[in-house]
């Protein structure tokens, strides 16, 4: 075919690719809707499944710490239209407290470590060393949580209980440090769970922060150097601000993982539905409870046990969503403060 000469168009139709673009847009719109639909469906299913439990447990779910399936040796009875075992009582207070405490601990311990590691890897270490450490992060991120959990309960827990916790428990007798004093237990408990969770979220936060640091453009860094700033001052003025909202996002991602982590916590928390008396004491979380109680819950002929597990799962989902929205709000605010020119080719 001969090439068309420019200007040879004359009076040809101008509509072109409009229709195929419309189809593409519709497809993309549908694809974009999938996550939202999936979320809505999940909430709806959990809600329907949990409804009898919501009615039976009421606000007691949040105010009571007693979790009891009731007597399996008597016939189920009906209260307010809901079938339940005699003595059934579902209070999730300590599950919620345990979930929040262990995740907060994980973030408190894991975030500084992860951020520090990212800064050192991206800013200080020579390339080859940085690359191999980065590889370590990726490997660490890829370890299945059951493996970390097993290691936690077989190796880390006993080590901590034997060599570290006793020292920590000797902290001065000041009221604020009460939580660190007292018996250290066997190494299964809140602090061990927090440490294991920290280990699991460090790779996500560190790798993300490192990638963000690498993307900070050179120009403002040179501007800082040209003012006579040291490397540390330059970092404070440029890099740390440039990556701030991204790092906050990574932290929330990590927190989300910690909140929902199941098997590792089930293995190292001691699995006691109770308010831990100190930071070494046994406890449990929502996710760990769901997986550990499911078997026995299925034996409940009134089905209320399973429905109550669905209810706490719903609570966990809502906590995670709340954390995410809060973080999104914070990130948007800090991004608005500096309004980073994303991809503005600085």
């Amino acid at each position, binding site marked *: 075919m001969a090439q068309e000469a420019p200007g040879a168009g004359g009076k040809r139709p101008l509509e072109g690719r409009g229709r195929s673009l419309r189809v593409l847009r519709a497809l993309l719109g549908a694809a974009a809707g999938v996550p939202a639909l999936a979320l809505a469906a999940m909430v709806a299913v959990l809600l329907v499944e949990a409804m009898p439990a919501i009615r039976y447990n009421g606000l007691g779910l949040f105010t009571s710490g007693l979790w009891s399936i009731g007597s399996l040796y008597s016939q189920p009875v009906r209260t307010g239209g809901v079938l339940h075992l005699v003595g059934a009582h579902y209070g999730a207070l300590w599950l919620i407290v345990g979930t929040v405490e262990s995740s907060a601990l994980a973030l408190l311990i894991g975030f500084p470590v992860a951020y520090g590691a990212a800064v050192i890897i991206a800013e200080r270490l020579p390339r080859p060393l940085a690359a191999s450490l980065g590889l370590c992060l990726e490997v660490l991120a890829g370890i299945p949580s059951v493996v970390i959990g097993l290691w936690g309960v077989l190796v880390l827990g006993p080590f901590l209980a034997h060599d570290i916790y006793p020292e920590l428990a000797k902290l001065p007798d000041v009221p604020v440090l009460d939580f660190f004093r007292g018996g250290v237990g066997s190494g299964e408990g809140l602090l061990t769970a927090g440490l294991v969770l920290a280990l699991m979220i460090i790779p996500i936060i560190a790798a993300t922060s490192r990638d963000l640091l690498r993307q900070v*453009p050179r*120009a*403002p860094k*040179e*501007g*800082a*150097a*040209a*003012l*006579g*700033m*040291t490397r540390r*001052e330059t970092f404070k*003025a*440029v890099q740390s*601000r*440039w990556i701030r909202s991204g790092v906050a996002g990574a932290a929330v991602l990590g927190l989300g993982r910690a909140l929902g982590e199941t098997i590792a916590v089930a293995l190292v928390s001691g699995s006691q539905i109770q308010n831990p008396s100190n930071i070494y004491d046994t406890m449990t979380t929502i996710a760990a409870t769901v997986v550990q109680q499911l078997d026995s819950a299925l034996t409940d002929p009134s089905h209320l046990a399973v429905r109550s597990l669905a209810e706490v799962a719903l609570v966990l989902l809502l906590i995670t969503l709340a954390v995410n929205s809060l973080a999104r709000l914070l990130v948007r605010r800090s991004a*608005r*403060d*500096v*309004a*980073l*020119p994303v991809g*503005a080719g*600085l």
Partner: protein
Amino acid sequence: MVSTVIAEEQEVGGCRLLLDQIRPAIHAHLDDPVIETFGLTIGFGNEPVLSGVDLPVARHQITAIVGPSGSGKTTFLRSLNRMNDKLRGFRRSGRVELEGQDIYGAGVDPLVVRKRVGMVFQRPNPFPMSIRDNVLAGVKVHKMVPRAALADVAETRLAEVGLWPAVAGRLSDSPYRLSGGQQQLLCLARALAVAPDVLLLDEPTSSLDPVSTEAVEALLLRLAAKVSMVIVTHNLAQARRIADQVAFFCEGRLIEAGPTEAVFESPKRRETGKYLQGQFG
């Protein structure tokens, strides 16, 4: 003879050293230069970039550095405040004296040099912080004024570059929403805020529109009374408008330097004339 010259021109285009490049550079003697380089030779790895540059920088004047791309203008400029130090393979011999002191001498802190010899870059590079904090960044780091005086400093510096009326009401806003020209003025204010003796500018208007360019040029002319300036520019008309001294670089060598008038009107070296004419058409 004539035919040889033409052949060379065809072969090499705008500016290429003629065969007699061994001739020493032509430059005017300056009585009291603020900066002076002596045999400044720079390379990256095995690649020579600058060879034997001797150039005095006039105090409280504007010195323009012109020359084709790749002739080493940026490298020269950045060597005046040790911004090249950390670049891969950077090698240097020769001296750069600031007020008679070798800035590459033993025991010299490059950070102190950079505080006294500021720099403005080709593209505006504000920090990711508010407009106010941008101006004050250097002042705060060097603890130059008490806290209570910071607001005043910000206003003075922004007014100095003519940005105050435009940003007075939004000092806490992001600098990235300013226009390119305003961002460059902000970077100038930031550099001036640490009260440098010398300001280095690397094609500061090359990314700006004509109106902003004019604003920056007017500002530089006003500043010359207080600060000595070295400006790299591709814009020969700009060099002519604002510079007191012009230095012409080609292929890593200083070819000719002197008062602007003299260099433009009666260049002493053929390469200079060719380059200046080529650009004017």
